[in-house]
Protein backbone atom coordinates (compact mmCIF):
# COMPACT_ATOMS: atom_id res chain seq x y z
CA UNK A 1 0.00 0.00 0.00
CA UNK A 2 1.52 3.33 -1.04
CA UNK A 3 1.13 5.84 1.73
CA UNK A 4 1.40 9.57 1.70
CA UNK A 5 5.01 10.78 1.50
CA UNK A 6 6.84 9.95 4.68
CA UNK A 7 8.69 12.63 6.59
CA UNK A 8 11.43 12.21 9.13
CA UNK A 9 9.02 13.31 11.81
CA UNK A 10 6.83 10.30 11.07
CA UNK A 11 9.79 8.19 12.11
CA UNK A 12 10.11 9.84 15.54
CA UNK A 13 9.99 6.56 17.41
CA UNK A 14 13.03 5.29 15.47
CA UNK A 15 15.23 8.10 16.78
CA UNK A 16 15.10 7.15 20.43
CA UNK A 17 17.88 4.59 20.14
CA UNK A 18 15.75 1.69 21.36
CA UNK A 19 16.67 -0.66 18.51
CA UNK A 20 20.13 -0.06 17.06
CA UNK A 21 20.17 1.05 13.43
CA UNK A 22 22.48 -0.23 10.70
CA UNK A 23 24.41 1.76 8.15
CA UNK A 24 25.58 0.46 4.77
CA UNK A 25 28.35 2.26 2.91
CA UNK A 26 30.55 1.45 -0.05
CA UNK A 27 34.31 1.73 -0.54
CA UNK A 28 35.74 3.35 -3.64
CA UNK A 29 36.64 -0.12 -4.97
CA UNK A 30 32.98 -1.18 -4.73
CA UNK A 31 33.18 -3.30 -1.58
CA UNK A 32 30.05 -2.83 0.53
CA UNK A 33 30.19 -2.47 4.31
CA UNK A 34 27.52 -2.68 6.96
CA UNK A 35 27.76 -1.81 10.63
CA UNK A 36 25.69 -0.80 13.61
CA UNK A 37 24.92 2.72 14.75
CA UNK A 38 23.74 3.07 18.32
CA UNK A 39 21.47 5.97 17.52
CA UNK A 40 20.39 8.03 14.56
CA UNK A 41 19.60 11.55 15.73
CA UNK A 42 16.94 13.73 14.23
CA UNK A 43 18.41 17.13 13.32
CA UNK A 44 15.76 18.84 11.21
CA UNK A 45 13.19 17.74 8.60
CA UNK A 46 15.97 17.13 6.04
CA UNK A 47 18.89 15.95 8.17
CA UNK A 48 19.95 13.28 10.62
CA UNK A 49 23.14 12.99 12.64
CA UNK A 50 25.22 9.91 13.36
CA UNK A 51 27.86 9.80 16.05
CA UNK A 52 31.47 9.48 15.00
CA UNK A 53 33.46 7.80 17.76
CA UNK A 54 36.02 5.61 16.06
CA UNK A 55 37.93 5.77 12.81
CA UNK A 56 36.27 2.72 11.29
CA UNK A 57 35.44 1.41 7.85
CA UNK A 58 32.16 3.33 7.67
CA UNK A 59 33.96 6.56 8.31
CA UNK A 60 36.64 5.71 5.75
CA UNK A 61 34.07 4.80 3.13
CA UNK A 62 32.09 7.98 3.70
CA UNK A 63 35.25 10.01 3.16
CA UNK A 64 35.74 8.27 -0.20
CA UNK A 65 32.13 8.08 -1.29
CA UNK A 66 29.64 10.14 0.76
CA UNK A 67 26.54 7.97 0.32
CA UNK A 68 24.97 5.73 2.94
CA UNK A 69 21.84 3.69 3.52
CA UNK A 70 20.53 3.47 7.06
CA UNK A 71 17.87 1.13 8.33
CA UNK A 72 15.99 2.29 11.40
CA UNK A 73 13.32 0.38 13.28
CA UNK A 74 10.22 1.59 15.01
CA UNK A 75 10.28 -0.26 18.34
CA UNK A 76 6.50 -0.17 18.67
CA UNK A 77 6.00 -2.71 15.88
CA UNK A 78 9.47 -3.58 14.51
CA UNK A 79 8.55 -1.64 11.39
CA UNK A 80 11.69 -0.85 9.37
CA UNK A 81 12.50 2.23 7.30
CA UNK A 82 15.39 2.87 4.94
CA UNK A 83 16.98 6.29 4.73
CA UNK A 84 19.14 7.12 1.72
CA UNK A 85 21.72 9.55 3.02
CA UNK A 86 24.44 11.79 1.74
CA UNK A 87 27.15 12.96 4.11
CA UNK A 88 27.25 16.74 4.44
CA UNK A 89 29.51 17.83 7.28
CA UNK A 90 30.84 17.04 10.72
CA UNK A 91 30.21 19.18 13.77
CA UNK A 92 32.58 19.02 16.69
CA UNK A 93 31.04 21.86 18.67
CA UNK A 94 27.63 23.43 19.06
CA UNK A 95 24.41 22.32 20.74
CA UNK A 96 23.84 19.13 18.72
CA UNK A 97 27.40 17.90 19.25
CA UNK A 98 27.25 18.66 22.96
CA UNK A 99 23.89 16.94 23.42
CA UNK A 100 25.12 13.81 21.60
CA UNK A 101 28.44 13.90 23.42
CA UNK A 102 26.78 14.19 26.82
CA UNK A 103 24.54 11.23 26.07
CA UNK A 104 27.53 9.16 25.04
CA UNK A 105 29.51 10.18 28.11
CA UNK A 106 26.64 9.20 30.38
CA UNK A 107 26.47 5.76 28.76
CA UNK A 108 30.26 5.41 28.84
CA UNK A 109 30.50 6.36 32.49
CA UNK A 110 27.85 3.76 33.32
CA UNK A 111 30.05 1.17 31.67
CA UNK A 112 33.25 2.55 33.20
CA UNK A 113 34.50 3.37 29.71
CA UNK A 114 34.69 7.15 29.85
CA UNK A 115 38.10 7.27 28.22
CA UNK A 116 37.19 4.95 25.39
CA UNK A 117 33.85 6.30 24.31
CA UNK A 118 34.35 9.84 23.20
CA UNK A 119 32.34 11.61 20.55
CA UNK A 120 34.73 12.92 17.91
CA UNK A 121 32.02 14.53 15.83
CA UNK A 122 28.36 14.57 14.96
CA UNK A 123 28.24 13.60 11.30
CA UNK A 124 25.38 15.35 9.56
CA UNK A 125 23.72 13.63 6.63
CA UNK A 126 21.12 14.98 4.22
CA UNK A 127 18.18 12.59 3.83
CA UNK A 128 17.63 11.97 0.12
CA UNK A 129 14.84 9.43 0.42
CA UNK A 130 12.76 7.69 3.07
CA UNK A 131 11.38 4.24 2.28
CA UNK A 132 9.06 2.16 4.38
CA UNK A 133 10.28 -1.44 4.22
CA UNK A 134 7.29 -3.62 3.35
CA UNK A 135 6.89 -7.18 4.53
CA UNK A 136 8.87 -6.95 7.75
CA UNK A 137 6.11 -7.50 10.26
CA UNK A 138 2.52 -8.70 10.24
CA UNK A 139 1.62 -6.19 12.94
CA UNK A 140 -0.05 -2.95 11.89
CA UNK A 141 2.10 0.19 11.93
CA UNK A 142 0.98 2.59 14.66
CA UNK A 143 -0.97 5.50 13.18
CA UNK A 144 1.11 8.42 12.00
CA UNK A 145 -0.52 10.89 14.32
CA UNK A 146 0.52 8.94 17.37
CA UNK A 147 3.30 11.29 18.23
CA UNK A 148 4.29 12.58 21.60
CA UNK A 149 4.26 16.37 21.48
CA UNK A 150 7.39 16.44 23.57
CA UNK A 151 9.63 14.94 20.91
CA UNK A 152 9.55 17.57 18.19
CA UNK A 153 9.18 20.94 19.76
CA UNK A 154 7.67 23.88 18.00
CA UNK A 155 10.28 26.21 16.49
CA UNK A 156 9.06 29.12 18.63
CA UNK A 157 9.52 27.08 21.77
CA UNK A 158 13.00 26.14 20.71
CA UNK A 159 13.82 29.78 19.94
CA UNK A 160 12.57 30.84 23.37
CA UNK A 161 14.82 28.28 24.96
CA UNK A 162 17.83 29.59 23.02
CA UNK A 163 16.92 33.17 23.92
CA UNK A 164 16.56 32.33 27.61
CA UNK A 165 19.97 30.65 27.55
CA UNK A 166 21.56 33.61 25.78
CA UNK A 167 20.03 36.11 28.17
CA UNK A 168 21.20 34.11 31.15
CA UNK A 169 24.74 34.13 29.81
CA UNK A 170 25.00 37.90 29.50
CA UNK A 171 27.56 39.48 31.82
CA UNK A 172 26.12 42.92 32.33
CA UNK A 173 22.91 44.85 32.00
CA UNK A 174 23.89 46.55 28.74
CA UNK A 175 24.60 43.20 27.13
CA UNK A 176 21.32 41.78 28.45
CA UNK A 177 19.26 44.53 26.84
CA UNK A 178 21.10 44.41 23.51
CA UNK A 179 20.89 40.61 23.41
CA UNK A 180 17.12 40.67 23.99
CA UNK A 181 16.46 43.05 21.09
CA UNK A 182 18.91 41.19 18.89
CA UNK A 183 17.19 37.87 19.61
CA UNK A 184 13.71 39.24 18.91
CA UNK A 185 15.02 40.34 15.54
CA UNK A 186 16.96 37.15 14.77
CA UNK A 187 14.39 34.58 15.88
CA UNK A 188 11.05 36.28 15.45
CA UNK A 189 11.75 38.83 12.72
CA UNK A 190 10.88 41.75 14.97
CA UNK A 191 13.16 44.25 13.25
CA UNK A 192 12.00 47.41 14.99
CA UNK A 193 12.05 47.25 18.76
CA UNK A 194 12.76 49.47 21.71
CA UNK A 195 13.00 49.12 25.43
CA UNK A 196 12.02 51.82 27.90
CA UNK A 197 12.66 51.72 31.62
CA UNK A 198 10.46 53.25 34.28
CA UNK A 199 11.67 56.21 36.34
CA UNK A 200 9.27 55.96 39.29
CA UNK A 201 10.27 59.29 40.80
CA UNK A 202 9.60 61.26 37.65
CA UNK A 203 6.74 59.06 36.49
CA UNK A 204 8.27 58.67 33.07
CA UNK A 205 9.73 55.95 30.89
CA UNK A 206 13.09 56.45 29.27
CA UNK A 207 14.37 54.67 26.16
CA UNK A 208 17.47 52.69 27.06
CA UNK A 209 17.87 50.49 24.01
CA UNK A 210 16.45 50.29 20.52
CA UNK A 211 17.04 48.33 17.35
CA UNK A 212 16.17 48.95 13.73
CA UNK A 213 15.89 52.73 13.76
CA UNK A 214 18.04 55.37 12.15
CA UNK A 215 18.30 57.31 15.42
CA UNK A 216 18.61 55.12 18.49
CA UNK A 217 16.48 57.56 20.49
CA UNK A 218 18.15 56.53 23.72
CA UNK A 219 17.21 58.97 26.45
CA UNK A 220 13.85 59.87 24.90
CA UNK A 221 11.00 59.93 27.36
CA UNK A 222 7.33 59.06 27.59
CA UNK A 223 5.20 60.12 30.52
CA UNK A 224 3.09 57.62 32.45
CA UNK A 225 -0.26 57.32 30.70
CA UNK A 226 1.04 58.84 27.48
CA UNK A 227 0.33 56.97 24.28
CA UNK A 228 0.63 53.21 23.89
CA UNK A 229 3.80 52.90 25.97
CA UNK A 230 2.70 55.15 28.83
CA UNK A 231 -0.67 53.38 28.95
CA UNK A 232 0.96 49.96 29.21
CA UNK A 233 3.23 51.18 32.01
CA UNK A 234 0.19 52.16 34.07
CA UNK A 235 -2.12 49.29 33.11
CA UNK A 236 0.69 46.76 33.52
CA UNK A 237 -0.85 44.72 30.71
CA UNK A 238 0.29 44.10 27.14
CA UNK A 239 -1.36 46.12 24.42
CA UNK A 240 -1.46 45.58 20.70
CA UNK A 241 -2.63 48.24 18.28
CA UNK A 242 -3.25 47.32 14.67
CA UNK A 243 -4.25 49.57 11.79
CA UNK A 244 -2.96 52.57 13.59
CA UNK A 245 -4.31 55.96 12.94
CA UNK A 246 -1.52 58.44 12.46
CA UNK A 247 -2.41 60.46 15.51
CA UNK A 248 -2.33 57.36 17.70
CA UNK A 249 0.84 56.04 16.24
CA UNK A 250 3.13 57.10 18.91
CA UNK A 251 3.53 59.01 21.95
CA UNK A 252 4.71 61.49 19.38
CA UNK A 253 3.03 63.66 21.90
CA UNK A 254 6.48 63.71 23.38
CA UNK A 255 7.68 65.75 20.49
CA UNK A 256 4.64 67.94 20.40
CA UNK A 257 4.94 68.63 24.08
CA UNK A 258 8.52 69.68 23.62
CA UNK A 259 7.53 72.20 21.00
CA UNK A 260 4.79 73.59 23.16
CA UNK A 261 7.16 74.29 26.02
CA UNK A 262 8.37 77.85 25.86
CA UNK A 263 12.01 78.81 25.54
CA UNK A 264 14.38 77.88 22.73
CA UNK A 265 16.48 75.51 24.86
CA UNK A 266 13.46 73.56 26.01
CA UNK A 267 12.54 72.40 22.55
CA UNK A 268 15.84 70.81 21.82
CA UNK A 269 16.11 69.27 25.26
CA UNK A 270 13.81 66.49 24.19
CA UNK A 271 15.09 63.50 22.30
CA UNK A 272 12.55 62.16 19.81
CA UNK A 273 11.29 58.67 20.54
CA UNK A 274 12.48 56.23 17.91
CA UNK A 275 9.67 54.97 15.75
CA UNK A 276 8.45 54.18 12.28
CA UNK A 277 6.37 57.12 11.13
CA UNK A 278 4.11 54.81 9.12
CA UNK A 279 3.91 51.82 11.46
CA UNK A 280 0.79 49.78 10.98
CA UNK A 281 0.96 47.71 14.15
CA UNK A 282 2.60 48.16 17.52
CA UNK A 283 2.88 45.90 20.52
CA UNK A 284 3.93 47.05 23.95
CA UNK A 285 4.40 44.60 26.81
CA UNK A 286 5.29 45.52 30.38
CA UNK A 287 8.39 44.18 32.13
CA UNK A 288 6.80 42.93 35.34
CA UNK A 289 8.48 41.77 38.49
CA UNK A 290 6.08 40.90 41.25
CA UNK A 291 3.58 43.71 40.85
CA UNK A 292 5.99 46.38 39.72
CA UNK A 293 6.46 47.47 36.14
CA UNK A 294 10.16 48.01 35.43
CA UNK A 295 9.73 49.06 31.84
CA UNK A 296 8.04 48.45 28.53
CA UNK A 297 9.20 46.43 25.54
CA UNK A 298 7.89 47.72 22.22
CA UNK A 299 7.85 46.27 18.71
CA UNK A 300 6.38 47.77 15.60
CA UNK A 301 6.03 46.90 11.96
CA UNK A 302 5.06 48.39 8.67
CA UNK A 303 3.17 45.31 7.47
CA UNK A 304 -0.35 44.83 8.71
CA UNK A 305 -1.20 41.45 10.29
CA UNK A 306 2.45 40.85 11.08
CA UNK A 307 2.26 41.40 14.83
CA UNK A 308 -0.39 39.18 16.29
CA UNK A 309 -1.05 37.27 19.48
CA UNK A 310 1.92 34.99 18.80
CA UNK A 311 4.34 37.91 18.75
CA UNK A 312 2.71 39.39 21.81
CA UNK A 313 3.11 36.10 23.66
CA UNK A 314 6.73 35.67 22.64
CA UNK A 315 7.51 39.24 23.65
CA UNK A 316 5.79 38.78 27.00
CA UNK A 317 8.02 35.79 27.75
CA UNK A 318 11.17 37.66 26.73
CA UNK A 319 9.97 40.66 28.77
CA UNK A 320 9.70 38.40 31.82
CA UNK A 321 13.32 37.33 31.43
CA UNK A 322 14.37 40.93 30.95
CA UNK A 323 12.53 42.04 34.08
CA UNK A 324 14.25 39.34 36.12
CA UNK A 325 17.65 40.28 34.66
CA UNK A 326 17.17 43.99 35.28
CA UNK A 327 16.00 43.39 38.84
CA UNK A 328 18.99 41.15 39.43
CA UNK A 329 21.44 43.75 38.14
CA UNK A 330 19.90 46.42 40.39
CA UNK A 331 20.59 44.25 43.42
CA UNK A 332 24.17 43.44 42.55
CA UNK A 333 26.61 45.48 44.53
CA UNK A 334 30.06 46.55 43.58
CA UNK A 335 31.43 46.03 47.08
CA UNK A 336 34.27 43.92 45.89
CA UNK A 337 35.65 46.83 43.91
CA UNK A 338 37.89 49.15 45.94
CA UNK A 339 37.07 52.86 45.75
CA UNK A 340 40.68 53.80 45.14
CA UNK A 341 41.55 52.99 41.61
CA UNK A 342 45.00 53.06 40.10
CA UNK A 343 46.79 56.36 39.82
CA UNK A 344 45.00 58.58 37.37
CA UNK A 345 46.82 59.20 34.16
CA UNK A 346 45.92 61.95 31.77
CA UNK A 347 44.37 60.58 28.61
CA UNK A 348 46.21 60.95 25.37
CA UNK A 349 45.04 63.94 23.41
CA UNK A 350 45.47 63.09 19.79
CA UNK A 351 44.84 66.46 18.35
CA UNK A 352 44.82 69.57 20.47
CA UNK A 353 43.12 71.44 17.69
CA UNK A 354 39.94 69.32 18.08
CA UNK A 355 37.91 69.95 21.20
CA UNK A 356 34.49 69.36 22.69
CA UNK A 357 32.75 72.06 24.69
CA UNK A 358 30.43 70.79 27.42
CA UNK A 359 28.09 73.23 29.12
CA UNK A 360 26.16 72.33 32.29
CA UNK A 361 22.86 74.11 32.99
CA UNK A 362 22.28 74.07 36.75
CA UNK A 363 18.64 75.05 36.30
CA UNK A 364 17.68 71.62 35.00
CA UNK A 365 20.84 69.46 35.33
CA UNK A 366 21.20 69.50 31.59
CA UNK A 367 24.37 69.17 29.52
CA UNK A 368 24.90 70.52 26.03
CA UNK A 369 27.86 69.52 23.92
CA UNK A 370 29.01 71.99 21.27
CA UNK A 371 25.66 73.74 21.57
CA UNK A 372 23.58 70.56 21.13
CA UNK A 373 21.50 68.91 23.79
CA UNK A 374 23.20 65.82 25.21
CA UNK A 375 21.59 64.62 28.45
CA UNK A 376 19.89 65.77 31.63
CA UNK A 377 18.81 64.79 35.12
CA UNK A 378 20.79 62.17 37.04
CA UNK A 379 22.84 60.95 34.04
CA UNK A 380 23.61 64.61 33.31
CA UNK A 381 24.94 65.11 36.82
CA UNK A 382 26.95 61.90 36.63
CA UNK A 383 28.63 63.03 33.43
CA UNK A 384 29.30 66.46 34.86
CA UNK A 385 30.89 64.93 37.97
CA UNK A 386 33.12 62.74 35.80
CA UNK A 387 34.14 65.57 33.47
CA UNK A 388 34.89 67.91 36.38
CA UNK A 389 37.03 65.34 38.18
CA UNK A 390 38.79 64.61 34.93
CA UNK A 391 39.56 68.32 34.47
CA UNK A 392 40.42 69.16 38.09
CA UNK A 393 42.16 65.96 39.21
CA UNK A 394 43.10 64.33 35.88
CA UNK A 395 41.17 61.24 36.86
CA UNK A 396 40.29 58.70 34.18
CA UNK A 397 39.00 55.71 36.17
CA UNK A 398 35.81 55.77 38.17
CA UNK A 399 33.79 53.25 40.15
CA UNK A 400 30.03 52.91 40.28
CA UNK A 401 30.27 52.78 44.04
CA UNK A 402 31.90 56.18 44.54
CA UNK A 403 29.28 57.77 42.29
CA UNK A 404 26.46 55.90 43.98
CA UNK A 405 27.37 57.40 47.36
CA UNK A 406 28.01 60.88 45.95
CA UNK A 407 25.20 62.90 47.50
CA UNK A 408 25.31 65.62 44.83
CA UNK A 409 24.12 63.14 42.26
CA UNK A 410 20.90 62.64 44.21
CA UNK A 411 20.62 58.91 43.61
CA UNK A 412 18.12 57.00 45.70
CA UNK A 413 19.93 54.93 48.30
CA UNK A 414 18.14 51.72 47.71
CA UNK A 415 17.51 49.70 44.59
CA UNK A 416 18.78 52.27 42.19
CA UNK A 417 19.80 50.72 38.93
CA UNK A 418 22.93 52.76 38.50
CA UNK A 419 23.98 50.66 35.55
CA UNK A 420 20.95 51.79 33.51
CA UNK A 421 22.03 55.40 33.93
CA UNK A 422 25.51 54.60 32.73
CA UNK A 423 24.14 52.75 29.71
CA UNK A 424 22.03 55.75 28.84
CA UNK A 425 24.98 58.08 29.23
CA UNK A 426 27.24 55.84 27.21
CA UNK A 427 24.76 55.59 24.34
CA UNK A 428 24.06 59.31 24.27
CA UNK A 429 27.79 59.96 24.06
CA UNK A 430 28.13 57.40 21.27
CA UNK A 431 25.48 59.22 19.31
CA UNK A 432 26.31 62.86 20.00
CA UNK A 433 29.95 62.89 20.94
CA UNK A 434 31.71 59.65 19.95
CA UNK A 435 35.18 60.98 20.78
CA UNK A 436 34.35 60.97 24.50
CA UNK A 437 33.64 57.47 25.76
CA UNK A 438 32.86 55.70 29.01
CA UNK A 439 34.54 52.34 28.67
CA UNK A 440 33.75 49.49 31.12
CA UNK A 441 36.74 48.24 33.10
CA UNK A 442 35.27 45.14 34.69
CA UNK A 443 32.31 45.01 37.03
CA UNK A 444 31.49 48.31 38.72
CA UNK A 445 34.33 50.26 37.15
CA UNK A 446 34.77 52.31 34.00
CA UNK A 447 37.18 54.74 32.39
CA UNK A 448 36.77 58.03 30.59
CA UNK A 449 38.50 57.81 27.24
CA UNK A 450 38.79 60.75 24.95
CA UNK A 451 40.70 61.70 21.86
CA UNK A 452 39.85 65.41 22.02
CA UNK A 453 40.40 68.31 24.37
CA UNK A 454 37.48 68.79 26.76
CA UNK A 455 36.37 72.31 27.61
CA UNK A 456 33.85 72.82 30.43
CA UNK A 457 31.56 75.73 31.22
CA UNK A 458 28.56 76.18 33.52
CA UNK A 459 25.38 78.27 33.51
CA UNK A 460 24.06 78.93 37.00
CA UNK A 461 20.40 78.47 37.80
Amino acid sequence: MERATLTLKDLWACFEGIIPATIATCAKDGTPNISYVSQVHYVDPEHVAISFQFFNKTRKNIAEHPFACVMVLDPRAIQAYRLSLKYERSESSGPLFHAMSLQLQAIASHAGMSDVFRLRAADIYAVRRIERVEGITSLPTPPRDERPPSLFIEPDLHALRVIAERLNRTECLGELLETALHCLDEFFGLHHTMLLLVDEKRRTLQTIASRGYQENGVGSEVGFGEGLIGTVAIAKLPLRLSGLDHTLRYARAVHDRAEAVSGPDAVCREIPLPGLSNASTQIAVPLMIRHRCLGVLVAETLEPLRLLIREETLMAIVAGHLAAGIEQSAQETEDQVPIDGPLPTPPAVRSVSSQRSFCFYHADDCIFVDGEYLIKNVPGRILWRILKQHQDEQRVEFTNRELRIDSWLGLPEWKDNFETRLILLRKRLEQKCPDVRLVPRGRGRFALETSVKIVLSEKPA
Partner: protein
Amino acid sequence: MIPPAIVELLRTGVSVNVGTRDADLLPECTRGWGIWVDDERQAVTLLLTESASAQTLANLRENGLIAITCSRPTDHVTCQLKGKITHIRPATPEDYARQRQWRRAFLGELIAVGVPAEQADAIIMEPAVSVGVHVTGVFAQTPGPGAGEKV
Protein backbone atom coordinates in the same frame (compact mmCIF):
# COMPACT_ATOMS: atom_id res chain seq x y z
CA MET B 1 38.28 -20.10 6.57
CA ILE B 2 35.78 -18.82 9.10
CA PRO B 3 37.35 -19.02 12.61
CA PRO B 4 35.66 -21.37 15.11
CA ALA B 5 34.68 -18.51 17.43
CA ILE B 6 32.71 -16.91 14.61
CA VAL B 7 31.11 -20.23 13.66
CA GLU B 8 30.00 -20.50 17.29
CA LEU B 9 28.67 -16.95 17.30
CA LEU B 10 26.63 -17.58 14.16
CA ARG B 11 24.93 -20.53 15.84
CA THR B 12 23.45 -18.34 18.56
CA GLY B 13 20.45 -16.46 17.18
CA VAL B 14 22.36 -13.46 15.87
CA SER B 15 20.62 -10.64 14.03
CA VAL B 16 21.57 -10.61 10.35
CA ASN B 17 22.19 -7.35 8.52
CA VAL B 18 23.10 -7.22 4.87
CA GLY B 19 24.89 -4.48 2.94
CA THR B 20 25.16 -4.33 -0.85
CA ARG B 21 25.59 -1.68 -3.50
CA ASP B 22 24.33 -1.01 -7.01
CA ALA B 23 26.22 -0.19 -10.23
CA ASP B 24 26.57 3.45 -9.10
CA LEU B 25 28.03 2.28 -5.75
CA LEU B 26 24.90 3.44 -3.92
CA PRO B 27 24.68 1.34 -0.77
CA GLU B 28 21.60 -0.56 0.37
CA CYS B 29 20.89 -2.36 3.61
CA THR B 30 18.39 -4.94 4.69
CA ARG B 31 17.70 -7.56 7.32
CA GLY B 32 18.31 -11.26 6.84
CA TRP B 33 16.23 -13.97 8.53
CA GLY B 34 18.59 -16.83 9.27
CA ILE B 35 22.25 -17.64 8.70
CA TRP B 36 24.42 -20.74 8.96
CA VAL B 37 27.98 -21.79 8.09
CA ASP B 38 28.63 -24.64 5.67
CA ASP B 39 30.66 -27.69 6.67
CA GLU B 40 33.91 -26.48 5.07
CA ARG B 41 33.66 -23.15 6.92
CA GLN B 42 34.30 -21.33 3.64
CA ALA B 43 30.75 -20.20 2.99
CA VAL B 44 27.52 -19.16 4.67
CA THR B 45 23.90 -19.33 3.60
CA LEU B 46 21.45 -16.65 4.60
CA LEU B 47 17.78 -16.10 3.94
CA LEU B 48 16.13 -12.91 2.73
CA THR B 49 12.54 -12.10 1.86
CA GLU B 50 11.87 -10.74 -1.61
CA SER B 51 9.44 -8.07 -0.37
CA ALA B 52 11.76 -6.49 2.18
CA SER B 53 14.94 -6.94 0.16
CA ALA B 54 14.10 -6.32 -3.51
CA GLN B 55 16.91 -3.81 -4.12
CA THR B 56 19.40 -5.95 -2.21
CA LEU B 57 18.61 -8.96 -4.39
CA ALA B 58 18.86 -6.82 -7.54
CA ASN B 59 22.29 -5.62 -6.41
CA LEU B 60 23.41 -9.16 -5.65
CA ARG B 61 22.26 -10.40 -9.05
CA GLU B 62 24.10 -7.48 -10.68
CA ASN B 63 27.50 -7.66 -8.93
CA GLY B 64 27.39 -10.37 -6.25
CA LEU B 65 29.25 -8.36 -3.58
CA ILE B 66 27.92 -8.65 -0.05
CA ALA B 67 28.70 -7.57 3.51
CA ILE B 68 26.92 -9.30 6.40
CA THR B 69 27.04 -8.02 9.97
CA CYS B 70 25.79 -10.41 12.62
CA SER B 71 25.28 -9.37 16.20
CA ARG B 72 24.04 -11.15 19.28
CA PRO B 73 21.48 -8.82 20.88
CA THR B 74 22.15 -9.86 24.48
CA ASP B 75 25.86 -8.97 24.51
CA HIS B 76 26.48 -7.09 21.23
CA VAL B 77 29.18 -9.54 20.16
CA THR B 78 29.36 -8.73 16.48
CA CYS B 79 31.21 -9.80 13.36
CA GLN B 80 31.15 -8.78 9.73
CA LEU B 81 31.60 -11.18 6.86
CA LYS B 82 32.48 -10.05 3.37
CA GLY B 83 32.20 -12.13 0.26
CA LYS B 84 30.72 -12.89 -3.10
CA ILE B 85 27.51 -14.78 -3.66
CA THR B 86 27.47 -18.27 -5.10
CA HIS B 87 23.73 -18.67 -5.58
CA ILE B 88 20.32 -17.04 -5.20
CA ARG B 89 17.36 -19.41 -5.25
CA PRO B 90 14.05 -19.95 -3.51
CA ALA B 91 14.50 -21.44 -0.04
CA THR B 92 14.26 -25.23 0.12
CA PRO B 93 12.59 -27.27 2.89
CA GLU B 94 16.11 -27.84 4.27
CA ASP B 95 16.68 -24.08 4.33
CA TYR B 96 13.42 -23.58 6.21
CA ALA B 97 14.40 -26.26 8.69
CA ARG B 98 17.70 -24.41 9.39
CA GLN B 99 15.76 -21.12 9.56
CA ARG B 100 13.39 -22.53 12.20
CA GLN B 101 16.40 -23.47 14.33
CA TRP B 102 17.89 -19.99 13.98
CA ARG B 103 14.50 -18.35 14.54
CA ARG B 104 14.01 -20.02 17.92
CA ALA B 105 17.39 -18.76 19.12
CA PHE B 106 16.89 -15.31 17.61
CA LEU B 107 13.43 -14.79 19.15
CA GLY B 108 14.85 -15.91 22.48
CA GLU B 109 17.54 -13.23 22.16
CA LEU B 110 14.98 -10.54 21.27
CA ILE B 111 12.70 -11.44 24.16
CA ALA B 112 15.72 -11.43 26.47
CA VAL B 113 16.48 -7.81 25.54
CA GLY B 114 12.91 -6.73 26.11
CA VAL B 115 11.17 -7.04 22.73
CA PRO B 116 7.56 -8.08 23.40
CA ALA B 117 6.99 -11.70 22.30
CA GLU B 118 4.09 -10.83 19.98
CA GLN B 119 6.30 -8.32 18.15
CA ALA B 120 9.14 -10.79 17.74
CA ASP B 121 6.69 -13.44 16.62
CA ALA B 122 5.16 -11.13 13.99
CA ILE B 123 8.36 -10.78 11.98
CA ILE B 124 7.76 -12.07 8.44
CA MET B 125 10.50 -14.52 7.44
CA GLU B 126 8.98 -16.36 4.53
CA PRO B 127 8.66 -16.94 1.64
CA ALA B 128 12.43 -16.67 1.67
CA VAL B 129 15.18 -16.54 -0.90
CA SER B 130 18.35 -18.46 -0.13
CA VAL B 131 21.64 -16.66 -0.77
CA GLY B 132 24.91 -18.58 -0.76
CA VAL B 133 28.03 -16.54 0.06
CA HIS B 134 31.67 -17.46 -0.41
CA VAL B 135 33.32 -15.66 2.53
CA THR B 136 36.50 -13.72 1.70
CA GLY B 137 36.95 -11.71 4.89
CA VAL B 138 35.88 -11.86 8.54
CA PHE B 139 36.07 -8.79 10.76
CA ALA B 140 35.50 -8.20 14.47
CA GLN B 141 32.73 -5.67 14.84
CA THR B 142 31.88 -5.66 18.55
CA PRO B 143 31.40 -1.96 19.40
CA GLY B 144 34.56 -0.30 20.67
CA PRO B 145 38.02 0.64 19.58
CA GLY B 146 38.91 -2.80 18.15
CA ALA B 147 35.94 -2.83 15.79
CA GLY B 148 36.84 -3.36 12.16
CA GLU B 149 39.92 -5.51 12.75
CA LYS B 150 40.33 -8.55 10.57
CA VAL B 151 39.85 -11.82 12.41
